[in-house]
């Protein structure tokens, strides 16, 4: 059984894209482009440091789920980061995970690395949020979410 420290607190995934770094950075940090490939609709806010962005999933059946993204850093063309609780209605004062997009120039174009960290500080209050893997991306147990909100309001 592996107990390496890297596994307990963070996720890191990487991809190589055949496009210049500025182009990729634009796709990640422009709200309209980001929304297209990430699968959300921005309801309010914009991608500026310190801004809270309210967004809704565009995945079929889950358009009613709204969540917050708190933009942290924007350093063209290498870094974009935010804090959130993935896919959840976000109460104040709850610990968040940090999502970082880091971009590097490589011979074929751009390497993009996503690091999500801070899982060890997640609150027990999010016990009711269930995730289901699906080719469409994020999905929710909508019934569980409704029940959680009802039980805990």
């Amino acid at each position: 059984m592996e107990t390496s420290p890297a596994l307990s607190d963070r996720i890191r995934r990487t991809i190589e894209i055949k496009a210049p770094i500025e182009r990729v950075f634009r796709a990640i940090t422009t709200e309209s482009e980001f929304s297209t490939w990430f699968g959300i609709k921005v309801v309010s806010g914009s991608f500026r440091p310190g801004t809270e962005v309210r967004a809704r999933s565009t995945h079929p059946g889950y358009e009613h789920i709204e969540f917050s993204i708190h933009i942290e850093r924007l350093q063209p063309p290498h870094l974009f980061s935010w804090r959130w609780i993935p896919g959840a209605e976000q109460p104040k004062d709850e610990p968040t995970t940090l999502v970082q997009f880091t971009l590097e120039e490589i011979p074929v174009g751009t390497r993009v690395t996503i690091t999500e960290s801070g899982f060890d500080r997640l609150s027990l209050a999010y016990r009711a949020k269930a995730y289901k893997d699906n080719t469409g991306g994020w999905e929710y147990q909508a019934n569980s979410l409704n029940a959680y909100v009802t039980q805990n309001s």
Partner: protein
Amino acid sequence: MPMSPRTRSKSRRRERSAVAPLPPVSAEVGTASLSGSAPVFAALGDRTRLALLRHLSSEGRTSITRLTRGTRITRQAVTKHLHVLASAGLVTSSREGREQLWELTGEPLLEARRQLDLIASHWECALQRLKAHVER
């Protein structure tokens, strides 16, 4: 075992954030919620505790004496860490003669790993969509 003020306030914080039980989840969903693994992640988020888990992983059932040997950590500290790991369901202990022996349990760690793997697979999909979008 006397608790340090820091440990005491940590337990209180845990109690304060306890919420209503999770409604029944359909069999199709499979894995439990991410934050059901929160105590596991919290237990893992410490270098000493990770070292203890690695030690238990290679040694099997072990006493506190053996876990402390060769380290600069006190027996009391190791005991405290083992109790944190135990309350997250990561280790369990049993008495053998005069000694308390500690060992790893399998499931909570695997569950936490599964949660992270699930989120990681979401990010992989997102990155694929980014690539497709930009390379169009």
